[in-house]
């Protein structure tokens, strides 16, 4: 997935750019009127480019998923600006947001709760198309079948319900649904963590192919640094709600400057070294 920046001399226009983004959640104690704020993240600057992958790594609870939800327009951030190809997204009305949403799609960490348990596979995939009013019922179904094939699901399973699929297969289903509207930005929230090694490689390969053929921009949240080193062009490290470090992948792995990043990288171990330590 390494294309663009280094080889191309002319600067590439940013596709999605966020500046000073912040989000606070308001919580209320049960049976009481006292409200208090919990800051999820603050002052986040990120830029996504077509055909490039930005990986976001960080501790559980650092605010990665909240940031992803804001960038996918599922939540309104409490501070900052968001621009898609120069268009400010946070001042748009509902109608225009509806038009923009198809361009930014998100795939969630937990496919079991992201899929409607009462719909068969093909309808789950075709639902975004139906919502956006694309094609006839038959065309949508045909597209759903194509997408199932693309993500490595047997087309004969199109009438199966989500519970009949395994965890990994469900994640493929969610990926197929996200691709249905041909988005330009995909926000991937831990999409590989439920898959086994061969499937991870397969999905990564698929994501890479799609990225180069559709010039997709990825914001890929992952905690598997081994995989991040393979797929990311750039890595942003999040710690306690802030981006503490953002560098090209190779630079980050070679010279992490923040203490937390150093700790994070030090915790990645190969099977060989673990076995050596255990036998000692």
């Amino acid at each position, binding site marked *: 997935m390494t294309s663009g920046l280094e080889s191309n001399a002319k600067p590439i226009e940013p596709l999605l750019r966020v500046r000073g983004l912040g989000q606070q959640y308001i919580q209320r104690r049960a049976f009481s009127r006292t409200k208090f704020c919990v800051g999820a993240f603050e002052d986040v600057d990120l830029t996504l480019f077509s055909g490039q992958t930005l990986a976001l790594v960080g501790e*559980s*609870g650092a605010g990665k998923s909240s940031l992803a939800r804001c960038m996918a327009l599922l939540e309104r951030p409490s501070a900052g600006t968001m621009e898609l190809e120069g268009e400010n997204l946070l001042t748009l009305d509902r109608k225009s947001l509806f038009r923009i949403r198809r361009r930014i799609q998100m795939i969630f960490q937990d496919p079991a709760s992201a899929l409607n348990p009462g719909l068969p596979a093909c309808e789950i995939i075709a639902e975004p198309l139906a919502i956006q009013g694309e094609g006839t019922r038959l065309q949508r179904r045909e597209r759903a079948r194509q997408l199932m094939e693309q993500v490595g699901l047997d087309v004969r399973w199109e009438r199966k319900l989500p519970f009949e699929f395994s965890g990994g297969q469900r994640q493929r289903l969610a990926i197929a649904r996200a691709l249905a509207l041909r988005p330009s930005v995909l926000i991937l929230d831990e999409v590989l963590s*439920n*898959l*086994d090694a061969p499937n991870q490689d397969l999905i990564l390969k698929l994501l890479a192919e799609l990225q180069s053929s559709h010039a997709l921009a990825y914001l890929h949240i992952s905690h598997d640094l081994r995989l991040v080193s393979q797929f990311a062009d750039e890595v942003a490290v999040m710690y306690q709600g802030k981006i503490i470090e953002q560098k090209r992948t190779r630079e980050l792995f070679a010279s992490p400057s923040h203490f937390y990043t150093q*700790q*994070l990288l030090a915790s990645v171990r*190969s099977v060989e070294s673990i076995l050596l330590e255990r036998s000692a």
Partner: protein
Amino acid sequence: MPTLLAVANLNVRYRCPDASEQVAVGGASFEIGSGEVLGLMGESGCGKTSIALALPGLLSKEQARVTGSVQFLGKELLTMEPGALRAIRGAGIAMVFQEPGMALSPVMRAIDQVAEVIHAHTDLKWDECCAGAQRALSRVGLPNTQRILSAYPHQLSGGQLQRVALAQALACKPALLIADEPTASLDARSQNELLALLRELQRESGISILLISHSPEVQARLADRLMVMDKGRIVEQGAFADLYRNPSDTCTKAMLRTSAHANAAANFDFEMVT
């Protein structure tokens, strides 16, 4: 090593709406020694989770037909009375599942979720159960603050939820822990912490673990022995290091990334970083 759990010729067949049956697990036989960590790997959909559910009798009769034999401390679990089985679940055999968000009750505070398990299996007063729950929560590395203790699941992150689920599982000091992808939703550092913690708890209390994980690094850290499944059948079983160094089945090779992945990951030498 005395045997804790002996599984012989376990078959799990799911009932389909059209009265046919789908075989999820076929003729699985294995043993878990007391204090042993048995790793289980396999492609998604190969029946790992079906085994995890079938062992403690979590598959309903309407949903699936489970045959064979599962002996836990000499008692047959598959033909056991529902009441007796309930006493074993949670206290003798505990479970941690892949998606903590679905395993926890959305309307209970973290501390109550854990205290409830203790309350169900002991005669302690509720206050004592809560104190026990607090200890269990701090043992799994959750900060002992009011915000965490009194938080509902939707107010916690995925990693924190998984710790609550683990605290719940370990609260009654079970003899066997079935962990189905316990670290899949944790970041690298918390993952290491959790694995180190599991290792430590396992050494201290001599608990046995059936560890389901697709990550070779996770298995390497914990598993003494490894079992590889393909399409519902166990294709290979043996000491982890042996299987890693000389895998004989193609499925094992793919799961452990013994060839292809090693080259891909060699782009960055992680050991050089520190």
